[in-house]
Structure formats: C-alpha cells, structure tokens
C-alpha cells in the first residue's frame, strides 16, 4: 500500500536545520495536511518526499519502497506547485499529457486520459489554450489535472490555493475535497492556512521550526492541543491563554480564582498557562456573578452577525469571548465564567500540555 513514511528525517542547509528528526506514518488514501507558519519546514519536507530536495539524514518510504535516493521521476508521485508551473509553450492538452508522453504511453491512451481528466475538472473547452490565456482558477485546475492524469501513487500539493482570491479559494478547496474522495489517492497538502487544514484534512501534521508539534485528526488537535503553540495556532478566533498559578485544586489569577479541571495533578503554586477557547467562555447575568466568575471589561466588540466577539481585560489579562449575538458595548462590564471542563492547562515554562 502506498503509505508514505518518514523515519528520522533531517534536512540541513549548511548550518541551518530546516527539518529536525521528523518521523511520520501517513495513512494510505488519506489527505494529510502539513500545517505551520512560513519557514516551519513543511514545504521542505514535502520537497524531500518529492525528491526535489536531498535528505540530510533518515529515510523516506513510499509503500515498502525506500525512495530516499531515487530521482523524482522514479517515485511515482505527482505534484501541484504553488505557482502552478505550467509549461508556457505547451497547450493545456499538452501540459496535461506531458508526463504520460515522457513515460512512453501510447497517444490514444494519453488522449483518453486527458479527456477524462479535463471532463472531471471542467477543462474540456480549454484544451487548445496556452497557460497565458487562462485565469488563475483555470491554471490551478490544469495543475491539478496534470497530477491527476498521471495516476501517481501519492499526490503532493504545495500551497495550491495561496495564489487565488478568497472566493475562488473556497471553491477550489471544495473541489479538492471532492476530488480526493473520488480518486481515493494519498494526498499530502502543505498550507499555512489552518482553515484549509481543518476543512480538508483527514490528518494534520503541525510543524514549527522544523519540528513536528502534533499529529492528529483536525478535531483531535482542536480538542486536545499538545502544547501552547498548537493551541494558539489552531482555531479562530484564537484560544485565550491566561497566566495563572495552581492554588490547592484551583487556579488563581491576579484577582480571581477559577476551579481547575477535575482529576488533574498539578504541583502546588506551579505557574501555568490556562487556555480556553473564546466560545467556551460563558457570560453570566450579573445577578449570578459569584466567586467562581470574573469580570470582563469590554474594549472591542466585533459584530460578526450570528456571533459577537468581545475583547477586553479580564483579571489584568486579555480575554476574547465569543458570544451569541449581543448588544454589549465598549466600556461594559460583564460577568464571565471559565468552565473547568473547558480549560486546557499547559506548563508555563515548556508550554507542554499538563491536562
């Protein structure tokens, strides 16, 4: 089966370590997203899988085959580039069929597969055009089609949507999603856009500074981020991270006490980062305010239609609260409660998850 595995893979550019000891097992037929900010090593990792970048240390396997030192052409992979990289001197049909032609596939077979792929991607009317005469979305489709006709084992997509405008991006995201379900091939998709990752992925690999931070399904990562970095990176609006201290089964801020999640063992008086997603913060009526709640001094109200995002000071720190549509105004003082079962506790020093 065409599982892609990386075993202890390193990439060094001179003294700079771009990818540090990455070990991954990507499932067959799954869509795996490498997610992280620019410079985190996700594209370098992808390029190493493609064979466009040499591996400094470690092994890469596609299926049972060690491809670490194979040329790209011998790995049976297809790739969609960020800038599409369509051959400007060839027509769309020639672009689509080039990979087959090089591999000596018969002309009739090429024509059939090109016709098939162009049907699937809605390119049938554009086959005689040259890349110059295509719009961004069409170029993107041709780039996808070029990968598609090849019938490769693994599809690699390097930020394929980042050059499209916002509307087209959502549309193409859907198409890629459907395409993946339809062809059932393993795909590796690189992006820095966490929404793309959440919506498309079967599995997400979050990277930072060349190191894998967490691997899991979108919801696993959302529900149980493994460290402060992942917690802040996944989810919009961003998770709140408050500095607090353990105080006998409770969590103490500067002026408020929040009850800790049940069954977590924290060293007394340990400094903590307490995370809570903005939509998990509960606004309570003033009359119900008690010792377990604190006060939010609203500075900013962002009305998003269905919901309202309130940003303000809480216990001397910044807190984002996502509430159902509200008519709160800047300057208001609202009682809020941080439910214990919604809290994520991280070690303040290492940033690792405690609970």
């Amino acid at each position, binding site marked *: 089966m065409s599982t892609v595995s990386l075993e202890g893979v390193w990439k060094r550019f001179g003294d700079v370590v771009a990818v540090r000891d990455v070990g991954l097992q990507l499932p067959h037929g799954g869509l795996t997203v490498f997610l992280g900010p620019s410079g985190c090593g996700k594209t370098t990792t992808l390029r190493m899988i*493609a*064979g*466009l970048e040499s591996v400094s240390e470690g092994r890469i396997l596609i299926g049972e085959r060690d491809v670490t030192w194979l*040329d*790209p*052409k011998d790995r049976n*992979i*297809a*790739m969609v*580039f960020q*800038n*599409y*990289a*369509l*051959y*400007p*001197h060839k027509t769309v049909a020639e672009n689509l069929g*080039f*990979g087959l032609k*090089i*591999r000596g596939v018969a002309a009739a077979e090429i024509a059939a597969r090109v016709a098939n792929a162009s049907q699937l991607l809605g390119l049938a009317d554009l086959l005689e055009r*040259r*890349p*110059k*005469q295509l719009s*961004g979305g069409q*170029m993107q489709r041709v780039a996808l089609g*070029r990968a598609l006709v*090849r019938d490769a084992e693994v599809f690699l997509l390097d930020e394929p949507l980042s*050059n499209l405008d916002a509307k087209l991006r959502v549309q193409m995201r859907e198409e890629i999603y459907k395409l993946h379900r339809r062809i059932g091939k393993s795909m590796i998709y690189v992006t820095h856009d966490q929404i793309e990752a959440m919506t498309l992925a079967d599995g997400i690999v979050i990277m930072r500074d060349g190191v894998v931070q967490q691997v899991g399904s979108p919801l696993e990562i959302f529900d149980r981020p493994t460290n402060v970095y992942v917690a802040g990176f996944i989810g919009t609006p961003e998770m709140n991270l408050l500095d607090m201290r353990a105080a006998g089964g409770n969590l103490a801020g500067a002026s408020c006490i929040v009850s800790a999640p049940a069954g977590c063992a924290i060293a007394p008086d340990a400094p903590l980062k307490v995370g809570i997603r903005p939509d998990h913060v509960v606004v309570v009526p003033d009359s119900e305010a008690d010792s377990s709640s604190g006060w939010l001094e609203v500075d900013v109200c962002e009305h998003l239609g269905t919901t309202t995002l309130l940003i303000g000071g809480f216990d001397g720190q910044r807190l984002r609260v996502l509430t159902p549509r509200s008519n709160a105004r800047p300057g208001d003082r609202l009682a809020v409660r941080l439910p214990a079962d919604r809290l994520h506790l991280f070690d303040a020093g290492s940033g690792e998850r405690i609970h």
Partner: protein
Amino acid sequence: MTSAWQRRFPHWRGDTVTALLVLLVLFPFFYLIQMSFRPKEDIFGGGFFFSPTLEHYGALWRGNFPFSFVNSVVTASCATVLAMAIGVPAAYSLSRASFGGARQIGLWILVTRMAPPIAFTIPLFIAYRYAGLHDTRTGLVIVYLTFSLALVIWMMKPFFDAVPRQLEEAAAIDGCSTWKTFLTITLPLTAPGLAATAVICFIQSWNDFFFALILTRTQASTAPVAIVGFIQYVGWEWGRMAAAGTLVMMPVVLFSVLVRKYLVRGLAAGSIKG
C-alpha cells in the same frame, strides 16, 4: 484644421525627423549599393540616373571572391554552431550553478571579452605557425570560437535565469531526466534568446577582419580580407569593392531583420503567476 491626413499621421513632425535620421544613417549603405551597380566609367558619376549593370558582380564571380566568400560562410557558421553547442549548456549550468566559485567563473569568462584582440595576435600568430593552423579554416574557427563562447555564455545566461526553476521541477516529477528537462522544457522557452544569440554570434565572426587578415594568407582568407585585396598598385577597383561589400553586408542585414522580433519579444510570460 484637422485634415484626414493629419488624423492618420498624428505624429507627423516626429515621423519626418525620424525618416530624415534613418535616411542619414542609411545613406552610406544605399550609396554602396548603387555604386555596385554603376558602370565602371561612371562610378563616381554625379548623375542620379544611370543604366545599372552587373559587370562588377560578374567580375567578382570570375575572380577569387567566391572562394573567400565560402571561407567566410564556413568559418562563421562552424564557429557559431560550435560556440552554441558548447556555450549554451555552459550558460545553463552557470545559471543553475550552486557550486562555489560559479560567479568567479562567470566573471572570468567575461574578462576574455574585455581584453583587446590585438594583445593576442603575436602569440596566436606564432602558435598557429607552429601548430600548422596558419591560413586554415580550422584555425580561424578556433579563434572565432574563443570570442564567441564568451558572448554566447553571457547572452544566454540571463535567458536561462528567467526560466523558473519550478518548471524544471515539474518536469522532473513528470518523469524527465535532467537532460530531457533541458531539451524539452528549458531550451524551447529560451528559443528567442537562442536565435538572437546565434545571429549575433554569426555576425561577429562574419564581420571579423582583424584575425582573418593576420592569420590567413590565401587558402583561408575571408570575404572582408578579399575586399581589401581590391586595393591594388594599378588602382582601386571601386566597383568590385562596392559589389563585394554589398554581398558581405547582405547576410548581416538579413539576419538582423530576422532576429529583430526575437530580440524584442519577452520571454516565457504567463508561465508563473505571481
């Protein structure tokens, strides 16, 4: 008053000046051509009208000139083909080079263009005498090659620089080896550059007078050298000089017109959106 004429030529003042300048620049050229068709007796004749004759061309044809002309064609073509065959891959590897000193190598190649040719004549002359290359076409081709190579490398490198690497990476993933990528993707994209470079390379060798004069005698002498041969003790054969000059100029004019559009045309636009 805006007449139809003025609407058609809105920039007539500028156009007139341009036309006059072009005439001025091309005057020697036209003068040479008309001279080559004038009868011998009337060669400097002031009259605007004359009965054209091919006597000078006929005289050239019967003399040694065709031989020199062929020498020119052969040496310039061989030098161009060889310079392209060696220089284009060299330019490509310099463009894609990641090895240390690539810049230095490029610079030193350029330096060969800067040295005055006359500095090499005596060493070359002596070396050619010993090597038996004096007065041979091979000898001329070698000299032209040394100068054309630098030209080819430096002209082609920017064209290769302009071809996005991602295209080559896409080709590599599509199944091409390095050479195949170069031949099927990179080279076709630099076609305008190749054409322009080849023509300039050819013209440079074709126009050479200096080395052909020093390094040849009779067997390998080229057309420009032959023209000077028409200056003799008994008199200057103006008609033949004009006819030969016209013939030597023709390929240059022809190629320049051909390559004009390639020189102007942009490269590989639209391949990468960014």
